[in-house]
């Protein structure tokens, strides 16, 4: 409830600023400043023709499929780096480096290779998320306490059983955190990809707002992007994290 009140105050302050700055004193140009009322109007308009819903659904679908591919590639790469001492020494620093590359940098490549298509966007998403996932998989496995491995081996675990029954559950909390971070990278990369190409999606709706000089639409899309990010984080990743930690007695409450 406290948070809701905070939001109301924030929106009220924003609207007041708009009135004072744009309407009263004329300090800012109306086309460069969004207002809550304007954003609400934009929202109703985009809802009416179903565009906003369509764009959000498209983006989500792309984001999720790109993310799933990134997870598969990232986990495989992370396992490889973890298993091979050679790759650990030589490939990991490179992966760490590539991970710092902003995903926009992959856009020229993706357009040259895949054209202005959905594949191009997926490519950007995968490149944006897979490396960070790989690094977190490697780190999570490394942080498994050696005593678990030792205990399992002396209880007769084979290599496969060790990974399946000990290393996987042992690194699960860290893994989920890594996956969560991977998702936020994927979602950001998706916007970079969508802004550059022409398929229907939140990124395109945002660019359309810019082209029509409709700053309220731009603001609206930004808010939707943030909202989707928060909802996925809270409803999926945080819930999973909390469950795992609670089961192991690693949280304050019960």
């Amino acid at each position: 409830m406290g948070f809701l009140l905070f939001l109301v105050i924030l929106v009220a302050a924003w609207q007041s600023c708009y009135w004072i700055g744009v309407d009263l004193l004329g300090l800012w140009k109306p086309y460069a400043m969004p207002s809550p009322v304007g954003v609400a109007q934009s929202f109703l308009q985009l809802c009416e023709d179903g565009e906003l819903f369509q764009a959000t659904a498209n983006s989500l679908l792309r984001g999720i499929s790109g993310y799933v591919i990134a997870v598969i590639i990232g986990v495989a790469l992370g396992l490889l780096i973890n298993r091979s001492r050679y790759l650990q020494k030589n490939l990991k620093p490179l992966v760490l480096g590539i991970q710092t590359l902003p995903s926009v940098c992959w856009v020229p490549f993706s357009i040259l290779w895949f054209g202005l298509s959905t594949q191009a966007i997926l490519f950007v998403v995968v490149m944006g998320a897979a490396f960070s996932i790989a690094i977190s998989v490697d780190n999570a496995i490394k942080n498994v306490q050696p005593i678990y491995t030792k205990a399992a081996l002396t209880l007769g675990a084979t290599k496969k059983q060790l990974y399946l029954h000990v290393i996987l559950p042992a690194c699960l909390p860290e893994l989920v955190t890594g996956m969560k971070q991977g998702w936020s990278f994927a979602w950001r990369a998706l916007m970079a990809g969508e802004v550059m190409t022409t398929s229907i999606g939140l990124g395109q709706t945002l660019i359309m707002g810019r082209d029509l000089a409709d700053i309220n639409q731009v603001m609206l899309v930004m808010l939707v992007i943030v909202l989707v990010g928060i909802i996925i984080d809270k409803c999926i990743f945080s819930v999973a994290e909390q469950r795992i930690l609670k089961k192991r007695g690693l949280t304050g409450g019960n």
Partner: protein
Amino acid sequence: MSLILQGLCKRFDNSEKDTLHEIDLEVKSGEFVCIVGASGCGKSTLLNLVAGLEQPTSGKVLLDDKEVKGPGSDRTVMFQEHGLFPWLSVAENVKFGMKLAGVSKEQQEQKAKYYLEMVNLWDYRDYPIHQVSGGMRQRTALARSLTMESKVLLMDEPFSALDKQTSNRLREELQRIWMETKQTILFITHSVEEAVYLADRVVVLSPNTGKVAEVVTVELKRPRHVYAPEFVELRHKILEEVRGEAV
């Protein structure tokens, strides 16, 4: 069953001398052998070699005439830190090794019950690990090791991280359990009292030479009592030996 250590040497890469030097030892079936020594004498290293968690520099460990190459469930280890899996309950931890070995569900259930009752933890079987005390965790680890019915059970100072009272209770229980099961045990401890209380034979390791300084056979009848005069006398004798070896 026979466990034979033959000319076992271990030197670590950064060391000038052998941590363990020419160790010869035989553990017979059903025997309870304790290894004692001052800290740094390599007693945990010895156990790791038998467990197959480390490789000897020279010499070998033979279990039933087969050379030990790596860890396995015929030499289950109970560690100082319990090494239980926090994502499993007490009973699930106890069943873990049996599950890996593909033991049937009913048999897992039955054996888990048998050993959990033996360590007085049956009522706590569904508790998560983080909700039971340190002593209960070690008892869970003990039950887990016992379910493997290993040829030899290796115990690496299993009670030394516990408070005195709990550790005394657990060694009493271990004595009772050993009398019931006659499980072959190789037990590492820094406590001479614990060694005399539990063992058929006490092997004293020397930190200076890395060799076996002395082997003392304990002929006191079980159940033993730490305040019995013979007990005190023997404990004192071995303690002198250990002190003499430490510098």
